[in-house]
């Protein structure tokens, strides 16, 4: 069981949430100028890291907000959580590895 600290609701069981994907992917800023390779990278290519992973979860049975979560994929430890607009310390962790 993962407990996710929703920024609105506080700690909740992960079964109130629905996983909503990798939060490091950024949509091409200018869709008209983006190449098929850019779209391929944005839509399909995903790392499968062992360790810190930045991801979105949808609090679908709670406040229905999207939450950004930094989770360790090996231990399921939730290292940080916040709003989608928040900068979580993912880059720091990446750099420290």
């Amino acid at each position, binding site marked *: 069981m993962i*407990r996710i600290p929703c920024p*609105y*609701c*506080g700690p*909740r*069981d992960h*079964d*109130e949430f629905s996983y909503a994907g990798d939060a490091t992917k950024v949509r091409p800023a200018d869709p008209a100028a983006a190449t098929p390779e850019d779209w391929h990278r944005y839509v399909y290519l995903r790392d499968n890291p062992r360790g810190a992973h930045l991801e979105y979860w949808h609090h679908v*049975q*709670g*406040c*229905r*907000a999207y939450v950004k979560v930094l989770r360790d994929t090996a231990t399921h430890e939730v290292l940080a959580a916040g709003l989608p607009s928040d900068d979580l310390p993912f880059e720091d962790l990446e750099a420290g590895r």
Partner: protein
Amino acid sequence: MADATSLPQAPLPPRRSPLDAVWVAGDYGAAAVGGPGVTMLRRSGLSSVQLDARRGTAASLRAAVAGALGLALPGPGRAASGGEVRALWLGPDRWMLLAEDTFALEAKLRAAAEPAGGVVVDQSHGRTILRLSGPAVREVLAKGTGVDLHPRAFAEDAVAQTGLFHLAVTLDRRRGTGTFDVHGMRGFAQSLFESLCEAAAEFGYRLSE
């Protein structure tokens, strides 16, 4: 094609609780010393109206609702009562407002909130509300949800949307000792009711008329 809002509207039949078919007032479960651990009653005749703020309109919407209904819309995880209306926080810039049907809440809210950027949707037909009270209520609810319901964490006027026995509910901790309103989806009302009855059986429970 005629504007949908101009079509003649037949009056709606009175709403009936989906629990009417299964609700038989009486005492059930274990015979507890000092009375049943949980007392359940159906809250009927209530209007549930959802209010959303369009982007950037939350402040003007709060002011409009405060002016029209005398009610300060609550912040995250909280409920507030003002006059005949109770408001529950459901999510960012989203609330559920409740009042007796006779209060005509939807019309009043529509008049006050829509010019201020609010979106008003009547959900009365889609919700079933149970009131649980008694010394064992917290233990019964704790069997079905991971939310910490201890008074230190879940004080009076606390609200949580959560899964209760895997069903989506809104929990509203009312004033007074151990009184909770459980708002469930109408279509799941009998499942919710049966789960609550099974959870409450060991403490003894009473179904009020």
